């Protein structure tokens, strides 16, 4: 019997359609979703603050203004802390700690994870075994305990916190990339590419990486928020940024010491919530829009 006669092939048609639109334009189109737009707006706000804060910050983040523990007022929107420093100024400067470190952590984790994961998926055999057992063992530890232990071992400070968090996050991307490579390896167009003698490097670059782009993007967006949280948590525990650095988690620790001067902890807390919520909304929206579930399963 015949197969479907005059084949309408909507997926193929859709592909052809979307291929003609550049990836950049497609990402721009995503901004029409309110969740994504909100997330992007929040993150952009903090980026602008990060770049420009030293031009307009009302006070110095490290110098006392002379008034200690004064509640919010016209002069000090979020009050002053135990050392008389302006909380608003410090919160704004805090973006220079949290954002760069979370981007650095995720970028490093994506890079290390991708290389190892792709290698594991591509070469298989013992490479695969070694990399996968490493991820198994790393992921067997709860993230915060692992980060705490590493940070404690290396000593406090943001640099060591960074190393600890990269150790926590790389296995996620290694697994993701490995799964992608394994899935793609057996697809027909790759097999075809192999038969026509394409090199492994070329196949990885041309076929594997573009297809891995979306799931990595969605995961990375969500994880950026989680890194901001973990950074703050480590600092809160005294294992991340050290005083007097205006890091949000460390500021909350100071706030906790002055429990009844509530304003000291409120502003840095809100800053963390807004950034993390921004990344989460972006990630959640992207996941819905790009429907990556199928790919990550």
């Amino acid at each position, binding site marked *: *019997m*015949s197969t*479907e*006669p*005059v084949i*309408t*092939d*909507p997926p193929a*048609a859709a592909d052809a359609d979307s291929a003609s639109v550049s990836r950049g334009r497609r990402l721009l189109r995503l901004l029409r979703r309110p969740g994504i737009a909100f997330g992007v707006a929040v993150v952009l706000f903090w980026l602008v603050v990060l770049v420009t804060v030293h031009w307009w910050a009302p006070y110095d983040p490290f110098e006392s203004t002379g008034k200690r523990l004064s509640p919010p007022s016209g002069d000090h929107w979020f009050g002053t802390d135990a050392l008389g420093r302006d909380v608003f100024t410090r919160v704004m400067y805090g973006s220079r700690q949290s954002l760069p470190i979370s981007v650095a952590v995720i970028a490093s984790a994506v890079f290390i994870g991708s290389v190892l994961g792709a290698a594991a998926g591509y070469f298989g055999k013992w490479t695969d075994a070694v990399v996968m057992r490493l991820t198994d063992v790393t992921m067997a530890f709860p993230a915060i305990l692992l980060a705490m232990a590493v940070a404690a071992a290396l000593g406090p400070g943001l640099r060591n916190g960074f190393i600890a968090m990269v150790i926590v996050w790389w296995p996620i991307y290694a697994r993701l990339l490995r799964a992608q490579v394994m899935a793609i390896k057996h697809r027909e167009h790759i097999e075809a590419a192999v038969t026509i003698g394409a090199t492994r490097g070329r196949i990885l670059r041309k076929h594997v990486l573009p297809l891995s782009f979306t799931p990595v993007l969605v995961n990375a967006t969500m994880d950026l928020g989680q890194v901001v949280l973990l950074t703050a948590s480590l600092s809160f525990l005294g294992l991340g940024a050290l005083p007097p650095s205006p890091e949000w988690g460390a500021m909350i620790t100071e706030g906790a010491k002055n429990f009844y001067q509530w304003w000291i902890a409120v502003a840095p807390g809100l800053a963390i919530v807004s950034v993390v919520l921004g990344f989460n909304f972006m990630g959640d929206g992207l996941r819905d829009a790009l429907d990556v579930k199928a790919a990550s399963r």
Partner: protein
Amino acid sequence: MSEPLLELTGLGVDFAVSGGTVHAVRGVDLTVGRGEVVGIVGESGSGKSATMLALLGLLAPNASVHGSARFAGSEIIGASEAKLRALRGGRIGMIFQDPMTSLNPVLTVGHQIAESIETHQSLSRKQTDARVRELLDLVAIPNAAERVKSYPHELSGGMRQRVMIAIAMANSPELIIADEPTTALDVTIQAQILAVLDDLRRQTGTAMVIITHDLGVVAGVADRVNVMYAGKVVERGTVDEVFYGCEHPYTRGLLACLPRLDRRDQDIEPIGGAPPVLDQLPTGCAFAPRCRYAEHACTTAEPELRVLQATAVACHRAPVGGRQGVAS
């Protein structure tokens, strides 16, 4: 024909989608007599499945249905949910395309058949079990007593489709709607499933509507055939009339895709292009953009179904060049 079992008049289905309305079914008239087997043939997207799902209120919530559908004399479009529930599985059974995904993976097949019986009849546990086994025998599943405890993944594709048929037959319905019943199956299994359907019809006298893209499926089992294109019936007739005397260029294209031994004809070739996008239909005949016979009239007025020598055809140009190209 006295009172038909099912009579559709001007049935239409619209889907509200972002940025407009898709007119999936655009006024279908159709009758199915008691005990009759009617085929509905068309490409995917021609509205053939939507027509039948609309009957039972099984379309997605963004669909709106208009027109009329009378089942055994009473109107069912816009009927209450309770009334529709009584029809579904009770007087009208449905068989779907992919028996792998259409059966619930975490429930035994016995459970899934029994569920249909329990919904519509109050039988004792024992009677239900007996009926389940009887149904499995009816669709020729060996070892019925064993098979009831199986999960869908333990059965082959053909066996699963037999289970689907057993579910549809559970309450001895007057009508069975089979939506692409053989498409997901291997060629040899397809023939077996069609044989099962044909047997059922002979044994129980149930009427059937068989929806398919494959004229070959219809040839063996159907009495009459409706060819649908872009949400409309474009040609109808008995199986013989359609196979040997079709007039619509689209039907001819479909037939050309069917490998046949008794025809060596250069004139008929597969239809090029793709079906129209249903939210931006051309004016005039929807098939015109793909039709090699299209002329000016075809792009201005929409053709109505009219009876020619054998079949009823919705085409301005029919009969195109007489019987040319059709062996008879």
